[in-house]
């Protein structure tokens, strides 16, 4: 299995994406922002299409779109969460309606770019959209895998650096704000970081894998582990287990797409955790 180059690349990129998604996902679930992560992965499609329509590298469009929308949702959401804190502490989700409106508008633009790009020479927008949605982890080159690994390390480093204040702000926004922690800045920064993760994961493994790895292992970790750092580590480990197990399974059964195998294991873990705990 390790003799194949495509498999080695898939393992490198998959490990990087799984670790980042697992640890980021722990915060995403803590902050109730799974929908925001989902929206970011959808926004990647119009981003890539717009770049393709403009004739520039699609990755540029991908990163610009997800980071900009991440920061935008953060700006809206930070106000919403803190504004409500007086009444209901953190029992209400970040503003899902605003997220739905933003990403629907941007996907509407995606339709426009899809048509526009589809009219040009060498039209292959359907393939591009499909690749952005579902990715092709077995089709990565060595350079792409290395890039994924470097980005993952950078994201994890930033996340660990802001872990303490972010945790404080997520758990008790009022107290954190009173102590002078920049809650709004952290919220926006975290979502921008999530935008980077979304762009990288979408490009390497597809929006589908991103959502599954963000939500399922982290939700399982929240059920199983009490302490925050233990939870983060467990979320990363579970995501990694799902990724490796899924890749091995897909390698053994050729009819099984790798994304499906990885998500099936991740959701299976979540189901078991929700039964046990």
């Amino acid at each position, binding site marked *: 299995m390790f003799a194949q180059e495509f498999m080695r690349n898939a393992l490198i990129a998959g490990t990087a994406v799984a670790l980042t998604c697992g640890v980021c996902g722990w915060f995403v*679930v*803590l*902050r109730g922002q*799974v*929908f925001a*992560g989902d929206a970011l992965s*959808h926004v990647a499609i119009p981003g890539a299409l717009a770049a393709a329509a403009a004739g520039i590298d699609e990755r540029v469009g991908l990163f610009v779109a997800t980071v900009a929308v991440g920061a935008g949702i953060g700006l809206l959401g*930070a*106000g*919403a969460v*803190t*504004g409500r*804190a*007086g*009444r209901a502490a953190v*029992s*209400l*989700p970040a*503003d*899902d*309606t*605003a997220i*739905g*409106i933003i990403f*629907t*508008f941007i*996907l*509407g*633009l995606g*339709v*426009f770019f*899809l*048509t*526009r790009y589809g009219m040009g020479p060498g039209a292959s*927008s*359907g393939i591009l*959209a*499909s690749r952005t949605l*579902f990715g092709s982890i077995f089709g990565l080159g060595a350079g792409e895998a290395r890039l994924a690994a470097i980005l993952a390390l950078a994201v994890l480093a930033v996340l660990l650096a802001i872990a303490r204040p972010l945790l404080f702000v997520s758990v008790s926004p009022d107290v954190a*704000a009173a102590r002078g922690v920049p809650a*709004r800045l952290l919220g926006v920064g975290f979502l921008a970081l999530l935008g980077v993760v979304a762009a990288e994961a979408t490009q390497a493994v597809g929006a*589908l894998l991103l*959502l*599954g790895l*963000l*939500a*399922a292992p*982290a*939700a399982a970790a*929240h059920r199983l582990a009490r302490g925050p750092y233990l939870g983060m580590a467990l979320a990363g480990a579970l995501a990694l287990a799902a990724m490796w197990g899924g890749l091995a399974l897909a390698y053994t059964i050729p*009819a*099984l*797409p790798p*994304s*499906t195998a990885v*998500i099936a294991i*991740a*959701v299976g873990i*979540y189901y078991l955790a*929700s039964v046990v705990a």
Partner: protein
Amino acid sequence: MPAEAPAPYLSWNPVSDVSQILEYHFMVNAMLASGIVAVMAGLIGWMMVVRRQTFAGHTLAMMAFPGAAAAALLAVPAAWGYFAFCGGGALAIGRFAHGEQRSWRQESASIGAVQAAALAAGFLFVSLYGGVLGDLETLLFGSILGISDRQVLVLALLAVVVIALLAGMARPLLFSSVDPQVAGARGVPVGRIALAFLLLLGAAVAATSQVTGPLLVFALLVMPAATAQAITPRPALSLALTVLLALGVAWLGVGISYFSPYPASFFIATVAFTIYVLVRVPAAMTGRRVRGPSGHAGEPAPTGVIA
């Protein structure tokens, strides 16, 4: 656009524009279908925004993908797959997310897990099917121009059933949305009502995605409702306004798309978003406290904490 049609031209005379559109049977069907869907989506969407179930609605919309893929695999009409998977998805979300007293953190995570599982299943179906799914763009972004008389009839019947059921449970549903604890204490079956609403939402989403495509259902499901709730806090008025807005947005979008090479769903989303922004921005500029898009009245913000 069919080949036999003379080149459409947009004039400043709206009457001639509309009569041009309605000259063709396929456009009449498109207008009928989008009108029916808009009314249903407006009503259900209003309730969805009040109940803050936008993510659940989006997840149900994504069920269209495994639905269509499974239908292709089994060689049955795609709409069957849509409705079957939307119903199944509604049950799964109800079971996972509302089964017991869970925090919204767990709820959003479990909805995400349901969506990922469904998409993964859809991806499996596509690869088992072995081919490229007819047209991914149509699957994702909808196509309104090929709707038959029979489909219009089915949509109309579905809309009547969904709206009747919604009207039947409107009072307990609203009660349990606004204050689930008190409603439960008064003997309202909160859990069963939530599940019933999710099923209705699934049906409405499946119908809407025939017009806008699954990715853009919110253009009719969320945007008109959020706009109307930002305009007025009175439930009955904002409900009526939602339906009018949805209808206007849908017809305007489909109408404009007749004169342009771009798909109707793009115009529906853009028109709906423009109206939303036009309503929200002046309110935000003047600093007037309006009801947020979530349907919750904004409290006075603690100054200094947020801008």
